[in-house]
């Protein structure tokens, strides 16, 4: 049986009257030994898709929490090879997406990445420093393996640019909530809701909102909610403080949106 596509996974949540949940965790976090257990826990506690961060020495789109997680992972010897090996035999309910900066992917080899990632059950990639104008080579490598290259759009992405992405995008659309980097924010700015509304109007794909998300109330206030939410820094912080993945997911799964 074919696994559901990323798009289908989010649509299924919508059909069940839920917002799809997409936790992000850096590979090898908090320790390489406990990483797989935590991924399994996220899977068991209601994640629809899990984004796995591939550590990089110079993560320009990330705030301090993800950067620190990345630094720790690198210090522990985590790399793309290791990450894909951990993911290979997991047999998760949730879909898997690799989120990483371009250079480690480029050095691994784009063809080889597509093949090995698909082999490990990965269904898509997000590359925060690879805008539309530069993503041709990676997109070409991913297509034969049916991997989605997830488009990122933000408050300053105008409708015309969104349409250019929409022409090639697949999977889902990642809407960046703020003019900034990843990291926990108390309140989402007004522009987050506008970005979601515009992205929903332009794309026929589901829209996931990320950056700064940590509690359901942030989303409840939105008149046009996203189809999915991504949380990274808040989850990493919770785990680093000794909390469990299950505890973190609970307020999100208990809640009807």
């Amino acid at each position, binding site marked *: 049986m074919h696994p559901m596509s990323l798009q289908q996974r989010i649509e299924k949540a919508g059909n069940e009257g839920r917002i799809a949940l997409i936790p992000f965790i850096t590979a090898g976090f908090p320790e390489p030994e406990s990483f797989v257990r935590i991924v399994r826990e996220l899977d068991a506690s209601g994640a629809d898709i899990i984004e796995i961060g591939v550590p990089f020495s*110079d993560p320009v789109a990330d705030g301090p929490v993800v950067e620190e997680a990345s*630094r720790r992972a690198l210090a522990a010897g985590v790399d793309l090879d290791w990450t894909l090996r951990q993911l290979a035999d997991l047999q998760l309910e949730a879909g898997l997406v690799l989120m990483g900066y371009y250079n480690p992917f480029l050095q691994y080899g784009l063809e080889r990445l597509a093949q090995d990632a698909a082999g490990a059950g990965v269904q898509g990639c997000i590359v925060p420093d690879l805008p539309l104008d530069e993503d041709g080579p990676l997109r070409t490598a991913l297509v034969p393996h049916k991997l989605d290259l997830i488009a990122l759009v933000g408050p300053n992405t105008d409708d015309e640019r969104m349409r250019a992405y929409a022409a090639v995008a697949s999977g889902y659309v990642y809407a960046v909530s703020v003019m900034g980097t990843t990291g926990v924010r108390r309140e989402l700015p007004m522009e987050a809701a506008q970005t979601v509304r515009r992205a929903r109007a332009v794309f026929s794909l589901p829209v996931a909102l990320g950056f700064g998300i940590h509690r359901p109330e942030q989303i409840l206030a939105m008149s046009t909610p996203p189809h999915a939410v991504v949380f990274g820094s808040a989850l990493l912080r919770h785990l680093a403080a000794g909390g469990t993945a299950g505890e973190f997911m609970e307020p999100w799964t208990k809640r009807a949106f």
Partner: protein
Amino acid sequence: MKKGRFGDFGGQFVPELLMPPLWELERACETIFSSPAFQQELTGLLRDFAGRPTPLTRCDTLSQELGFSLWLKREDLVHTGAHKMNNTLGQALLAKHMGKRKLIAETGAGQHGVATAAAAAKLGMACTIYMGAVDVQRQASNVSRMKLFGAELVPVDSGTRTLKDAINEALRAWIVEQADTHYCFGTAAGPHPFPTLVRDLQTVIGRETREQAVRQFSRLPDAVLACVGGGSNAIGMFHPFASDPEAAKVRLIGIEAGGTGEPGCYNSAPLNLGSPGVLHGQFSMLLQTGDGQIEPSHSVSAGLDYPGVGPEHAWLHSTGRAEYHVVTDASALRAFEILSRREGIIPALESSHALAFVLDKPSAFAEGSHVVVNLSGRGDKDLDIASKHLSLLQGDAACTP
């Protein structure tokens, strides 16, 4: 060639949120920057504020020993002490015409930070400088100069806490502040249009050198040399020669920093010792591990201490139009001392690398030829570092030869 590309090198590898400010800058380059009125205003500032044109000085003593004429392009005499001001005045003026009220910049040694802060002060703009926490410690006097010019200084505590991390932090800040802020990038690297914009602002070095060569020794130089960190002083010197078929015989020689020099040591020589990859918005040559993590760099000269290099140099290297060599810390320190003693000029440790190649390998140049070294900056800022290495400057030994 594709827009923003030099052969395969260059590009715009940045988060989508940075594309709109890069487009805005591209448009400003095409409209404001290329207008005669802007160029005239900039020329006035470079003359009256920065002190251009800078002389082309013959090293009479050294030339006699070497058997060929050694000339120095005197960027050390530009206001604030390095070629960096050619770039920052241009970008600050452009930003002001774009309606921006604030400049942000990264700095390693502090030279670009000082030049940005001075330009901001001159043009009445706000200024924030991002500097690795390690560099803040190493370069205390430049920190004071920036503060005196009214700049806010942000020490960067992430990663290796040096220049590359300061660039990361400045890029992050630009995402947030792009509406009213220009990122005054410090070298001919980074995402398009910076490599082209910074080059165009630094070509004043090569253009003046050409005119002065013809005036002072009646022909083009046989070779021009420059140190290569990110590559801005070098491309500023090279480009007017590289882009002109009539100058095809002029040798273009870039010098990278080799660090301490033993095999496997940290260095800052990505063209000679690195491999192609993506960092800070560009595809170029990089110091990196096999799995694409950026390696720390090292050089005794903080201004060359960077693991990447501008894409146009990667291209000139690949086509063979320019040649690139490596010079170690020790050689550069020797050249620093020799130029001071023999010619009465204290060169920046960065520029000392280019000079050292000529002094170490005079056989690379024919007798009677004319060789120009771009003296990208003055070395006063380096006295503390030099005094740790040069016996001449240690203790209170009498200053006899």
